[in-house]
C-alpha cells in the first residue's frame, strides 16, 4: 500500500506531529498569511480530522492543502521528523480521488502525460508565442498577451524554437569516454532553457563523458503528482523506469532538483508494491545525480579547464535540489573555484522563491508576496548575476525581479561552468 493508494498510509506521519509549531518559523506561505491553516501543523490537523471523520473532503480543505509549496522547509525544521511532503502528496491524491480533478488540470495533465503530444503542443506554442506574449524589455521575458490561465502581469520566457532533445543526437560519443551517463533533461531545459541544456552537454563532453539523451523521455510527473493526479503520475513513473533502467550507464544526470527528487524518492514510493517495477525503481534512483554533484563528486573539477570570469554572483538554493536531493555544497564549490568570480551568499538562500512550479500560476499574488523577500535578499548582496539549479526557479526569479525592477541576468550553475570553459578557450587562443 502506498500513500497514493490510501490516505491511511500517512497516519504514522500524522501521529509523529506534536503540534509544537516549529514549522511556523520557516513556512514561506505561513510567514505571509500567518493563518494556522496554511502551516504544516494546521494542515496535519485537518487531515487528521478527515481521517477521524470530523471533516469531509471539502473545497475548503482542497484550498488549504493547495497552500503548500512542497518546499520541505518544515520537513527540515521538524523536531519530530514528520515527512510533511509525504502527507501533502498523499492528501492531495485523496482529494482528487474524492473530489475529482479540476477539469482544466485534467486536460493539461492528459497532454503532458503523452510525450509526443506535449512536444507538439510546446512546439506550436513556440510558433504562436509572438502572438500570445507581448515583448518586454526584460532579458528573458515577455508579458502574456492573452491570459492562458496565467496572470496577465506574469512574464514567462520564450519557448525554445526547437526543443533541446530535437537539437541533439540521442548518444553523444566522445573518444575514450571515462564515464557513461544518461541525461534527463526535464521540461525546463528541453522547452525553455535549451542553451543551458547544450552547455550541460558540452561540459560533459569536455570531461570525456559519453552522454545518452533518451528521445522518448518526457515530463518527470512532479507537477501532476503535486496536484494529486497519482494515476497519471504512476504511468509516467513506469514509463521512465522502463526507459532508464535498460540503459548501460553509471549515472543518470538531472539539471533540476524537482525532477531529481521525483526519480530519487517519489518513483520509489509510488512503485514500492509493484513487483515488476519496485527493484528497478530503486536501481534507477541510485543512479540519479544532480549535475553539480556529478561535476564535483564524480568527475572532479579540473581547474586547468577554468578561465576567468569577472562576475559577482549569488546563489539561490532550489528547494528540491537542496532539501529533496541534499545538494547545496556542490554548486557553491563550483562557483568558488572559478577564477575572477566573486561569490556572495544571500540571506536565507535556502528559502523558497515562491515558484513551486505551478503554484506560481494558481496563486500568483501569494507567490509574488513570498518572492519579494528573495528579490530583496538578492539586491542586498550587490551581485550582478544570480545562479541557481532549477528551471522553475529561474522563471520565477526572472518574473519576480522584473516586477521589482532588478534586471539581473540569471544562470543555471552549469552555464557558469560552461562560460568559464569558454573563457579558457579564448585565453588559449589570444
Amino acid at each position, binding site marked *: 500500500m502506498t500513500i497514493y493508494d490510501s490516505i491511511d498510509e500517512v497516519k504514522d506521519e500524522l501521529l509523529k506531529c*506534536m*503540534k509544537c*509549531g*516549529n514549522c511556523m518559523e520557516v513556512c514561506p506561505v505561513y510567514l505571509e498569511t*500567518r493563518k*494556522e*491553516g496554511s502551516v504544516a501543523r494546521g494542515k496535519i490537523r*485537518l487531515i487528521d480530522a478527515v481521517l477521524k471523520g470530523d471533516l469531509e473532503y471539502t473545497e*475548503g480543505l482542497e484550498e488549504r492543502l493547495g497552500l503548500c509549496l512542497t518546499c520541505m522547509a518544515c520537513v527540515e525544521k521538524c*523536531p519530530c521528523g514528520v515527512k510533511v511532503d509525504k502527507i501533502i502528496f498523499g492528501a492531495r491524491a485523496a482529494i482528487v480521488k474524492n473530489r475529482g480533478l479540476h477539469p482544466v488540470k485534467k486536460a493539461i495533465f492528459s497532454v503532458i502525460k503523452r510525450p509526443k503530444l506535449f512536444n507538439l503542443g510546446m512546439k506550436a506554442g513556440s510558433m504562436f508565442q509572438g502572438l500570445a506574449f507581448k515583448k518586454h524589455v526584460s532579458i528573458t521575458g515577455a508579458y502574456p498577451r492573452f491570459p492562458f490561465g496565467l496572470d496577465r502581469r506574469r512574464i514567462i520566457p520564450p519557448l525554445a524554437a526547437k526543443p533541446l532533445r530535437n537539437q541533439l543526437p540521442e548518444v553523444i560519443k566522445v573518444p575514450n569516454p571515462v564515464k557513461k551517463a544518461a541525461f534527463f533533461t526535464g521540461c525546463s531545459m528541453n522547452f525553455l532553457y535549451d542553451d543551458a541544456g547544450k552547455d550541460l552537454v558540452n561540459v560533459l563532453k569536455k570531461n570525456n563523458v559519453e552522454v545518452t539523451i533518451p528521445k522518448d523521455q518526457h515530463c518527470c510527473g512532479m507537477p501532476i503528482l503535486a496536484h494529486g493526479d497519482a494515476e497519471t503520475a504512476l504511468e509516467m513513473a513506469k514509463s521512465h523506469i522502463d526507459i532508464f533502467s535498460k540503459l548501460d550507464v553509471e549515472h543518470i544526470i538531472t539539471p533540476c532538483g524537482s525532477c531529481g527528487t521525483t526519480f530519487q524518492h517519489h518513483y520509489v514510493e509510488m512503485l514500492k508494491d509493484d513487483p515488476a517495477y519496485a527493484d528497478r525503481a530503486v536501481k534507477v534512483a541510485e543512479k540519479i545525480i544532480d549535475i553539480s554533484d556529478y561535476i564535483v563528486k564524480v568527475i572532479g573539477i579540473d581547474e586547468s579547464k577554468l578561465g576567468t570570469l569577472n562576475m559577482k554572483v549569488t546563489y539561490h538554493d532550489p528547494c528540491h535540489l537542496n532539501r529533496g536531493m541534499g545538494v547545496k555544497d556542490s554548486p557553491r564549490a563550483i562557483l568558488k573555484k572559478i577564477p575572477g568570480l566573486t561569490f556572495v551568499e544571500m540571506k536565507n538562500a535556502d528559502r523558497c522563491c515562491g515558484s513551486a512550479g505551478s503554484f506560481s500560476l494558481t496563486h500568483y499574488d501569494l507567490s509574488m508576496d513570498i518572492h519579494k523577500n528573495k528579490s530583496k535578499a538578492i539586491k542586498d548582496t550587490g551581485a550582478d548575476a544570480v545562479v541557481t539549479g532549477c528551471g522553475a526557479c529561474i522563471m520565477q526569479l526572472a518574473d519576480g525581479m522584473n516586477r521589482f525592477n532588478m534586471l539581473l541576468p540569471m544562470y543555471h550553475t552549469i552555464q557558469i561552468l560552461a562560460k568559464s570553459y569558454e573563457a579558457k578557450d579564448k585565453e588559449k587562443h589570444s
Partner: protein
Amino acid sequence: MNKNVINELVSLLGKENVLTDKEDKINYSYDATADMPSREPDVIVTPSKKEEIVSLVKLASKHKIPLVTRGSGTNLSGGTIPVDGGIVLSMLKFDKILEVDPANLTATVEPGLVIQRLNEAVATHGLIYPPDPGTVTTATMGGSVSECSGGLRGLKYGVTKDYVMGLEIVMPDGEVIRTGGKTVKNVSGYDLTKLFTGAEGTLGIITEIIVKLIPAPKFRRSMLAVFDNLDKAGKTIADIISNKVIPATLEIMDNVTIRTVENYSKIGLPVEAEAVLVIEVDGMIEAVVLNEFETVKSICSGNGATSVKLAESDADRDAIFAARRAALPALAQVKPTTVLEDATVPRSRIPEMLKALREIAVKYNLQIGTFGHAGDGNLHPTILTDESNKEEMERVHQAVDEIFKVAISLGGTLSGEHGIGMAKSKYMELQFGSAGLNVMKKIKDALDPDNIMNPGKMFWRG
C-alpha cells in the same frame, strides 16, 4: 453563536477578518499542549486596529461571549484552547516594533511580534532582550508575556516578568489602561504590570508592551560535564552558585535523556552517565569570564566529573548546545505522545527531585526522560507515551499528580515557565491552599465579572 453576532463582527472587522469555516474552527481548536481536549471556537477574528479590539471586547461583553486571545499557539499549558467556544482573537496582525530606545534601554512592541524579530532589531544597538524560551523563533511577545515564559538564561538573566516594564491593556469592559512605563523606578500604585504578566489572558487583552533591554554580553565560554552519579551533579550545581559564579546557562540531562539524544543524533554522549551538565558563563570582561570558567571547571573536576569537555571554538559550543537542544525532539520521537511538564524546585533540591522522578517512572511503569534548567530548578520531566493507550494514559495522569505533589513538598511550584492554563489548574489548591486561591479568584471576579476572558483557565472547574 447567534448569527447576528457574526454579522456584527463582520460589519466591525470586514468579512476577511471573520473566519467561520469548519476548517478554520478546527485549526484554532488546539495549541502545542499534548493530552488536552480540543474545542472548536465559534469564530476566529483577525483585527488589525486597536479600536477594533475595543469594539470587539465591548461586543463580547454585551453578549457575554468567551474571548480567547491567541498569538502563535505554541504554549504548553492548554492556554489558548477555546474550551467554552466563543471568539478566538488572533493578535498576529499586531506585529510591529513601535520603538527601540537605546537611551532608556527599552523597546515598545505590539503583542503579535515574534520574539526573535525583537532580538534581531535590538542586536544592531548591541542590546539583547534576555528571555529565551525554546520557542523564541515562533512565539509572540504577547503570548510570552501572558505566560511569563522563561528559557535557558533564567538563572542569570531572569524571566519575562523581569523585563516587562509597562503594558497597555484592553480591559474586559472595553476600557483601555496603561500600566508601568519606561522608568526603572516606579512604585506608584499597585504593580499592575506584574499582575497582567503571566495572567494567561484571563484578565484583559495586552495591546502594547514596553520591555527592558540589556547590553549584549561580549564574551562567553561553555563546557559539558559528565557525571556517573546524580548527587555529584547536584553538588556541582550548588557549589558553582555558592562559589559566586552565576552561569548564564546551567542545564542538566538525565540518563534516559542522554541515551535518547545519543540514539537520535549520535554525537558521542556517554550513554552510561547518570547526568550531564551544560554550562556557559558570559560577561563583558574577558578576564572575568575566563576566571569564572576556570572556577566552574575545577568545581566539576573536584566533584568527580568523569569528564569535562571544554568548547574551544564556536563549533564546539554549537555541538554542546546541540546536544541540549536535541533533548526534547529526541524524546518526542520515541513515542507518539510527549507529555512535557515543568515542575520547579529550589535548585538545592534538584537531586531529590530527579530521584523522585525516577521512582515515579518505575512505580507507574513509564518512560520518563528529564532535562531542564538545573540552575533555576526548573525541570522538564517528559513522559513518553501514547494517547491512544487508555490504560497507560491513566498511569500517566497518576504519575503527573505525583510529580506535582513531590515538587510542592520540596518547596517548589507547579509551573516554572509554561503556565497553568487547563493543564495544571486542578493542582492550584495544592500549592496555594483555598485561601490563596480565593484571593486570585476575587481578582478575577472583580476585573472580569462575566468571566469572558479566556474562561476555563487557571481555575479548576472539576
